[in-house]
């Protein structure tokens, strides 16, 4: 017997889960560098414009679609226009692929959390990370060893994901987010307070916030701003549509979108203050310029920060533990949302019970993740992540905006969200969805493609980029098309259909 659609226990539960999904590793290790590298304080201008003209409108769109059609992403598209059902399956497949390597990064963070207690990365964190820990092979095709520590961490992450999603929307996802998100914010505030009181913190903050107005004239800076808000808010992954489909009939969609957008961006702004205070301390204590220590992504978290913590005494241990807990919490709330974004469409399509679907996803996900626990795992992660982000998610976002803007018509969604929201959004929103978002995403896509063909990503061999990059994108599209041809077997979605329309 099929079950009726689950619901959030409270609006705050939904908001915390949506913010928890949006707040991820990129907020901590990508945004600070982006601000620094794209004009400092001046970057805030394109960034704020991007929040208002893209991030929040797209959130309203995804929340509106999920809520109106009371459905996960593929079912929402199928109900709106059957021909485009596959466009809901593609982000579902992308979400699954992201999950397989996200668990690997979180596994590293767990390992580094344990190392933080005694600064176990030694005096050369760079050498430790690549050689001692990852035992990195010399090519993306050289899989000669399994890194057991990473594999155990990955298994642990999948078990945690399984346990949370197995317990359902209200009993699992909502409960976990209600605990982890406030803790994450408190820990980050502690890091920031300690960071800004470190000697040399002002050097980092001055460089972070001093504006370089020339950069604002560069179109790439605007692409970076729009890219950041797009990736940061978990858009184009099917998560927000799925989450909003669990909302009760009367929910303030418009205000929820604004709240999620501001909370996510406020958190990454806070992170930038903490990260650059600590980097300023590092540059001052080593007597070097800030640009010699500035880094982002994996390099920042697993090489530069361990170096800083090593120079700090007891505070180094404390900050290390807090920092890696932050990474784990931020990553976990996002990975849970990815599991749910895969679970919900399968339940909608097959009518299988949640327990069965979650168990199947986590088992298959763990098996695929084993590839990332090898000594070539870092290469795989780097290539797959680049292609999924720059082509998978951006193309989904672009097509989503075109399909909803020109086929489903944004007015349908705007009318729905306005009818249940405290404040109404004007017709400007239709223009954003029809014109501004597609143009910006198309610009981002073209610029990535031009870069890709001029300088193949990361200097990797073409064979590796085709195997782990283009092939993954191709398989995603083909699989999405094939799945969309299968019938919907869940009888309960028919009961919800009338309600949705």
């Amino acid at each position: 017997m099929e079950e009726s659609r689950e619901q959030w226990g409270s609006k705050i539960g939904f908001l915390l889960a949506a913010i928890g999904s949006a707040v991820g590793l990129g907020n901590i290790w990508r945004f600070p560098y982006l601000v620094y590298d794209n004009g400092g304080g001046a970057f805030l201008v394109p960034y704020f414009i991007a929040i208002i003209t893209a991030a929040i409108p797209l959130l309203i769109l995804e929340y509106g679609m999920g809520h109106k059609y009371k459905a996960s992403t593929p079912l929402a598209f199928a109900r709106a226009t059957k021909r485009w059902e596959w466009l809901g399956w593609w982000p579902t497949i992308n979400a699954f692929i992201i999950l397989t390597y996200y668990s690997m990064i979180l596994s590293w963070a767990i390992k580094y959390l344990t190392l933080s207690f005694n600064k176990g990365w030694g005096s050369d964190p760079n050498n430790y990370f690549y050689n001692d820990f990852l035992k990195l092979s010399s090519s993306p095709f050289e899989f000669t060893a399994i890194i057991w520590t990473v594999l155990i961490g990955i298994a642990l992450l999948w078990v945690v994901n399984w346990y949370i999603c197995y317990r359902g929307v209200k009993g699992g996802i909502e409960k976990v987010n209600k605990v982890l998100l406030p803790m994450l914010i408190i820990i980050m505030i502690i890091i920031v307070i300690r960071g800004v009181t470190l000697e040399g913190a002002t050097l980092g903050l001055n460089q972070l916030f001093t504006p370089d107005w020339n950069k604002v004239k560069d179109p790439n800076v605007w692409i970076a701003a729009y890219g950041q808000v797009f990736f940061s808010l978990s858009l184009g992954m099917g998560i927000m549509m799925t989450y909003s489909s669990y909302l009760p009939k009367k929910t303030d969609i418009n205000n929820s979108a604004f709240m999620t957008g501001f909370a996510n961006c406020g958190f990454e702004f806070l992170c930038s203050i903490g990260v650059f205070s600590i980097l300023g301390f590092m540059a001052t204590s080593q007597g070097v310029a800030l640009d010699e220590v500035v880094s982002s992504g994996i390099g920042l978290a697993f090489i530069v920060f361990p170096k800083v913590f090593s120079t700090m005494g007891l505070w180094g241990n404390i900050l290390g533990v807090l920092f890696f807990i932050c990474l784990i919490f931020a990553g976990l709330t996002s990975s849970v949302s990815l599991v749910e974004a895969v679970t919900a469409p399968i339940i909608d399509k097959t009518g299988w019970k949640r327990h069965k679907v979650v168990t199947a996803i986590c088992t298959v996900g763990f098996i695929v993740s084993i590839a990332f626990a090898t000594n070539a795992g870092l290469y795989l992660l780097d290539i797959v992540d680049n292609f999924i982000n720059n082509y998978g998610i951006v193309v989904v976002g672009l097509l989503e905006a075109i399909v909803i803007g020109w086929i489903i018509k944004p007015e349908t969604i705007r009318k729905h969200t306005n009818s249940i929201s405290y404040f109404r959004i004007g017709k400007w929103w239709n223009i954003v969805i029809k014109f501004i978002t597609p143009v910006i995403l198309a610009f981002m896509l073209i610029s990535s493609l031009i870069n890709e063909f001029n300088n193949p990503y990361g200097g990797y061999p073409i064979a590796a980029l085709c195997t782990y990059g283009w092939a993954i994108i191709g398989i995603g599209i083909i699989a999405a098309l094939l799945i969309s041809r299968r019938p919907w077997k869940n009888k309960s979605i028919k009961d919800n259909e009338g309600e949705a329309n």
Partner: protein
Amino acid sequence: MTATAIAFLIFGSTVLYGGLITTIIISIKSSKK
């Protein structure tokens, strides 16, 4: 910190945290309605 850096720090904080607080107030108001 330089005055310019402080000004941009305040600018960013005002927009983001001001925006967040405003939405929270609206949410409380709308739930009372």
